[in-house]
């Protein structure tokens, strides 16, 4: 098994292929086995050794020698329609399975097309490995046809990248790439492959096959176990706090720590907020669940953090969308900050106790330390805090006004209906904008790895390809994408990929005829000057477009049609389905903390009356 623990224990039902799936399995494992091979074969073989089952990609001249051996490989290749799609599919695959997603594309424009997913994966710590073709080694630097300094361009948006200069290095570098992508704080790794070193017609591509069982990276030592002394101090703070809140971030999911998080919350009775990246890391139907904090978080999640006296930040990074104005964020709170990446500790807010370590291991140790210190019976009486939280929840629930007869649909109503008529473990992917925030707010995430989303970069066009990748990784699950009309137009063509590869994802387009989130900002902060945000509800005709791409297309305009359309979509399992919901363009996402303001200045739905504070 080549993956680190955290990925090895993925909940996926799919058995991981063992290293001997290649015919020459056993002899491959020693460096001295020395079978002559060309670099292209070696690269595909190395991917097989890493357990890769699926590659998302699109070929071209520079990468052709690596594409050629795919014909003889058990690896499934999914031919995308745009390289951005390949990258997001790899991400969706990784989000849903915890295993690294793999994309392979050619040089130049193909490599630049995949920069967006790389940056997206970098911001959200998603383990993907991207292979790019490159012009022959000797031509590098000559502005050869389709040359591009891919490693240079991607350096700031990858956890690491490699330019292979010698065919003999291929197995080692692939091994290192997967190791780096999946361990420590996960992230994207790129491997740039010059054509001559993989081209069997070129003597430079000759190599002696080997498989390195160990990686030798002297500068790479991810932390795992947290410092026991710091953990003890954290346990003491937890036992002393009167108004504690657990601030769970995406790191919980990366560390496979959802179960121990729940154990910790139940042991101590502490409420849990789950950030946009952590939705699903703690069940929304749990009495201690507070939902999403931040700019569009619910009132109780935001305000309980603001008023807390102890924030237990687990795998979260104090993103500005969560903190609002940093100096005004949770002013009375002491901070316990647990993160696998030591650079996150103190980056935004100095913790009282900072613990570098794997969230799962640290939480386990915390539970133990709490027990050793006398257990939860030593905690102060927190009934008043619990009461306060309940009062906020009752006073400021998420609300919206149902549409009047004949009016356009309310997006929240569509989402509630979708949520209530899909399996509890349905995977939902979203684009970026209002629909993303409503989905995060209104969905009930009761299982980890059911929410696939672009949080850090906020990439429009993420939903459709990411949903496809998720469905490829979890074919046993129902996968819905919730997309905006603006987002959909960025990557919709990947539904052609889904249709031709028989990947039956379902897409709900919330067509509000606007770049809705931008419109909301213009309405609130630019005096309703709607500059360049109108998209037209009828252009394109989404139903016809969907059908042209080989999907089933539906259009829904009235509340009565919502449920039947969803039910019909749920029954279709042999091709993708797209439902266009015509929604109210005037609808805004509430609550909202305007950018740069304090979380105390949260604006709640006008239906709650003046102000929220």
């Amino acid at each position, binding site marked *: 098994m080549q993956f680190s623990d955290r990925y090895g224990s993925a909940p996926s039902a799919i058995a991981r292929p063992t290293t001997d799936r290649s015919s020459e399995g056993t002899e491959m494992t020693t460096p001295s086995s020395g079978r002559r091979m060309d670099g292209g074969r070696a690269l595909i073989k190395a991917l097989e050794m890493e357990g890769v089952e699926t590659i998302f990609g699109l070929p071209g001249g520079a990468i052709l020698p690596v594409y050629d051996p795919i014909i003889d490989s058990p690896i499934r290749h999914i031919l995308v329609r745009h390289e951005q799609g390949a990258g997001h599919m790899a991400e969706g695959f990784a989000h849903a399975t915890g295993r690294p997603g793999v994309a392979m594309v050619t040089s130049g424009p193909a490599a630049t097309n995949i920069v967006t997913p790389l940056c997206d994966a970098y911001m959200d710590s998603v383990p993907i490995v991207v292979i790019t073709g490159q012009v022959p080694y000797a031509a590098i630097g000559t502005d050869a046809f389709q040359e591009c300094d891919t490693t240079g361009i991607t*350096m700031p948006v990858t*956890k690491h990248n490699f330019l292979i*200069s010698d065919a003999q290095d291929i197995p080692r570098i692939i091994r290192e790439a997967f190791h*780096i992508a999946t361990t420590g704080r996960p992230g994207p790794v790129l491997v740039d492959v010059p054509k001559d070193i993989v081209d069997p017609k070129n003597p430079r591509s000759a190599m002696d096959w080997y498989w390195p069982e160990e990686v030798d990276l002297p*500068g790479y030592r991810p932390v795992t176990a947290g410092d026991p002394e710091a953990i003890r101090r954290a346990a003491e703070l937890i036992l002393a706090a009167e108004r504690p809140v657990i601030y769970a971030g995406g790191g919980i999911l990366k560390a496979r720590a959802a179960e121990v998080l729940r154990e910790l919350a139940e042991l101590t009775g502490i409420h849990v907020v789950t950030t946009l990246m952590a939705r699903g890391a703690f069940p929304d139907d749990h009495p201690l669940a507070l939902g999403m904090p931040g700019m569009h978080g619910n009132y109780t999640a935001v305000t309980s953090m603001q008023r807390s006296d102890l924030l237990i930040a687990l795998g979260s990074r104090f993103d500005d969308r969560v903190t609002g104005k940093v100096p005004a964020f949770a002013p009375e709170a002491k901070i316990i900050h647990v993160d696998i990446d030591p*650079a996150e500790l*103190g980056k935004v807010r100095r913790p009282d106790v900072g613990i570098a370590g794997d969230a799962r291991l640290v939480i386990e140790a915390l539970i133990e330390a709490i027990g050793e210190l006398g257990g939860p019976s030593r905690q102060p009486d927190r009934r008043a805090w619990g009461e306060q939280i309940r009062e906020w929840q009752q006073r400021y629930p998420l609300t919206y006004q149902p549409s009047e007869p004949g009016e356009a649909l309310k997006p929240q109503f569509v989402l509630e209906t979708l949520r209530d008529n899909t399996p509890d473990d349905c995977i939902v992917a979203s684009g970026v904008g209002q629909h993303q925030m409503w989905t995060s707010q209104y969905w009930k995430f009761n299982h980890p790895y059911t929410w696939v989303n672009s949080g850090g970069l906020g990439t429009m066009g993420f939903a459709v390809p990411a949903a496809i990748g998720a469905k490829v990784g979890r074919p046993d699950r129902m996968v819905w994408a919730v997309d905006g009309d603006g987002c959909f137009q960025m990557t919709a063509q990947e539904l052609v990929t889904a249709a031709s590869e028989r990947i039956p994802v379902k897409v709900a387009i919330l067509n509000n005829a606007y770049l809705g989130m931008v419109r909301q900002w213009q309405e609130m902060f630019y005096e309703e000057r709607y500059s360049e945000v109108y998209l037209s509800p009828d252009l394109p005709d989404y139903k016809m477009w969907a059908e042209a791409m080989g999907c089933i297309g539906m259009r829904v305009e009235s509340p009565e049609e919502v449920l039947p359309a969803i039910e019909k979509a749920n029954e279709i399992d042999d091709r993708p389905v797209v439902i266009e919901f015509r929604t109210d363009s005037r609808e805004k996402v509430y609550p909202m903390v305007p950018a740069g303001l304090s979380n105390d200045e949260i604006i709640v739905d006008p239906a709650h009356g003046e102000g929220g504070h």
Partner: protein
Amino acid sequence: MNVAPDRGASAKHHILTVLVENKPGVLTRVAGLFARRGFNIYSLAVAPTEDDRFSRITIVVDVESAPLEQIIKQLDKLINVVKIDELAPGEAVERELLLATVAAPPEVRGQVIELVGVFEGRILSVGWRELTVSLEGSPSKLDDFEELIGNYGIVALQRTGRVALPKLERRTPDIEDPPA
């Protein structure tokens, strides 16, 4: 890279010695990290070490300690960075090399030669009206020399950027220590 007006050590002055793998692109990764955070590198020197798998980069930066802590942590995340030491100026031995071509017409040539001698520099090349000299030493010594020689007119100047290593610890033998 800007040259700070104050060439000497300032209060915000930090020396980092960074041991990196000897691989292509590593310097770009390191320098890129500083650039991305808008930090100025004041001086930079890179060369292979005693072990040819590694190079050592000496970086002098002028920043407050808090952002520097973040830089160090981010540097540490680079896969090719093996080890980072921050040297307090007082705990480091620092050296730098300066090459300068200075105006030295016959009337003042003697004075220039004398100045070079006082600083224990060397004359590398003699021209009709100019001299090229070299001087090795601590960065502040080089600063002083540069200022004085500047009075005669500097035609060209190149400094290497400083290299540094920690000062060795001098453990005074403990009274109780048994004789060796």
